[in-house]
């Protein structure tokens, strides 16, 4: 229960969440929590249409967990429920519970904005704001009320370094972010998500709009990021899941079919459907 208090964003100023010396942004010290995100008996509906059926799984801390499955299987919906992005949709309903770091995300006393500050998100299509590179990175801090220029500068550099973008853009931080290449934009979005030092990083098909070279860079980045963050990634690219995730969950028609270490999913799937999917027989 003290873990939430460790959330850097919720600590008071002067430097919310930006102590560079802090090794991990959150979580209990010592061994990583094997059930950092805990999903129990989770059903989810858009109106009367049920899209998730009785999902139960535990996502470990500081590892990369990949969600795979054919389109419409509900993997993105589940991901978007972690930071309650689906609240924007009218007529949603759920049953069961999701806890992140032992605290339910449906806590009525919990502000959605403070939940989202703890959970960074990177989208399929990179969505930098039509602002300067600098303003893009510090956006999360600005909306959290940070005005100290020194803190912002430091956070900007740290985030851009962690997104492996610093050397490419350090001379043009004031220039519009829209002048970057597609891969750079996506890494900028990663920097924007990590600038507030979240506990979890959600990635919704982060490489699907990128060329192979940019994809390689992002994948390297993901492996680097998992040292600090719990990463959940939705991907259509099986090789990508194989290359950069520790655990893989296979979804089909709203059900969690199989969830195991990536190695065993890819080498020794226990379910027939999983095997069919990863060998390309359907999907």
């Amino acid at each position, binding site marked *: 229960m003290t873990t939430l208090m460790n959330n850097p964003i919720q600590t008071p100023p002067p430097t919310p969440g930006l102590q560079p010396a802090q090794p991990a942004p959150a979580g209990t010290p010592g061994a990583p929590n094997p059930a950092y995100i805990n999903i129990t008996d989770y059903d989810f509906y858009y109106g009367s249409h049920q899209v998730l059926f009785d999902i139960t799984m535990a996502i470990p801390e500081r590892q990369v967990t990949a969600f795979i499955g054919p389109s419409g299987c509900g993997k993105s919906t589940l991901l978007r429920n972690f930071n309650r992005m689906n609240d*924007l949709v009218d007529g949603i309903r759920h049953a069961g519970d999701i806890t992140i770091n032992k605290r339910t995300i449906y806590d009525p006393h919990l502000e959605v904005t403070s939940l989202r500050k703890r959970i960074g998100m990177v989208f399929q299509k990179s969505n930098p704001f*039509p602002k300067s590179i600098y303003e893009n990175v510090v956006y999360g801090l600005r909306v959290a009320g940070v005005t100290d220029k020194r803190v912002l500068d430091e956070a900007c550099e740290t985030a851009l370094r962690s997104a492996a973008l610093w050397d490419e853009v350090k001379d043009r931080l004031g220039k519009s972010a829209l002048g970057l290449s*597609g891969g750079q934009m996506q890494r900028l979005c990663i920097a924007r998500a990590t600038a507030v030092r979240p506990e979890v990083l959600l990635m919704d098909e982060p490489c699907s709009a990128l060329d192979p070279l940019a994809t390689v860079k992002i994948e390297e980045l993901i492996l680097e990021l998992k040292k600090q963050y719990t990463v959940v990634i939705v991907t259509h690219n099986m090789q990508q899941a194989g290359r950069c995730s520790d655990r893989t969950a296979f979804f089909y028609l709203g059900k969690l079919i199989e969830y195991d270490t990536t190695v065993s999913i890819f080498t020794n799937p226990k379910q027939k459907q999983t095997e069919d999917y990863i060998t390309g027989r359907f999907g």
Partner: protein
Amino acid sequence: MTRPDAAPPARPPVRPRIKGESLVWLTAMGLTIALGMVVLLLGVVASYGLGVFWPKHISEFTIVDGGKTVTVGGELVSRKAKAGNAAGVTSEEIQIYTGNKDAYGLPFRYVDVSAVQTSREPDDALVIERTTGGNAIGLPVALRPKGEAPLPASDPAFHARLDQLVIAAAANRAAVLAIRNGPLAVNAQRLSKLDARLKSMRKRADADAAQLAEVNAEIARLQAESTDLNSQAQAKAATMLGSQLVIRLFTGEEKRIQFKDVLGATWPNQLGLAGRCGVFVTRMARFVWDNPREANTEGGIFPAIFGTLVMTVLMSIVVTPFGVVAAIYLREYARQGLVVRTVRIAVNNLAGVPSIVFGVFGLGFFVYIVGGSVDRLFYDGNLTYGTGGILWAALTLALMTVPVVIVATEEAIAAVPRGAKEGSLACGASKWQTIQRVVLPASVPGILTGLILAMARGAGEVAPLMMVGVVKLAPSLPIDASWKVGDLIPGLHTDQKFMHLGFYIYDLGFQSPDSEAAKPMVFATTLFLIALVVALNLGAILLRDKLRRRLATATF
């Protein structure tokens, strides 16, 4: 080297007729007609409007009128078939602008072409623009500066001396005007304010004698000061009084023109192209910057330009935040459903309500209810805001144009990419922060488009304004150094009545005592109304393009 066995290349097959190709012609025709109409409109207005300022040649006609030979001189305006010709008879008449309204009674004369014996263009014909009586046209005889010997027109120094006196007269008029519009006007305003206070003190009957005496003494002091200033102005004006220009009209009689009335003198028959352009520019500048004269048929339109501009800007200041806030609520906060759909339909219908309805509403609500209450609360019931004024006109038009802004803003907000909003929310921004930092900046170009449409509609509207404060003549601008309750911007008296280009055109065209003289003014004023609307729109468009470039999304 050609090989004999090489077959000639096959001709490409004739492209088959594509079904629907004729529709392309139809659409192109539609566009051409639309463009043609725009060009025609601008062409007609510009040719009539700009023709007013171009110095035309002065001709002298000898005509036989009822057995007598008469001389008529002036600008040839038109030549057309005579009205009321009997069948088979084709007689023409010419219209001559003779000027000298004060001498002839009418500034135009129609002459049968067959009656014209000779015509010539006298080299020394002189056109004098005056503050009263319109233009004088004639041949120069002499200058009679005050306290100097008369200078005959044959003297080589005549030309230079005339110009000198015209400039002196203008300077003198400006000096007198500075007193009248400056300290004298301020005094008059203070006096009317004190008068109102006196009236309300008497009405309440609760003021003690000392207070009354104090106000009375102040009134007396100001009145004395005004009298003094008045005599100062009169003395200044008197220095020009008595300087005269003597001209001979084409009818033969001599006429003396006071220099205090002279605005400018040109020798149209001596001017080269450069000189003509110079006169053209001078006359146009005077038209833009001067006050109207002679029941609006002469002089300039500056008060109308100013009134239109101030009203439109005030309207924009009111309508933009109002419309944007409403659109944000409709699009971002309101639960989309039957109610919102109904509201949206109602808003759209509001845009289709005839503008005079808004005028009636403005009169009933803004002028009578709001203005009346303001007067009761702040002005002791003295009529100030309780009558039409520039603020009420701006608010009425804002109400009329708010649907345009709402619709445009809603569309702009809806066009903001979902990704941008989600990106902001995922960073932990609240909905309002997202609207403020992401949605609104991205919608600014769309909002400006709405504002451009609103301004275009508002600036050209006439009917509702007639009910809420536009007047035929209000030469004093609603600005001066004083301040009173209700002024939004210090010095700008938003309660005052104002002139408006659209109404001015209507007034010239339909209410003028001299329709022939007003006709060119109608076109010239129209030209400036178009120019003003174009200038306002251009400003907004440039601003929008600048923002759009900044917001342009990169493609990859």
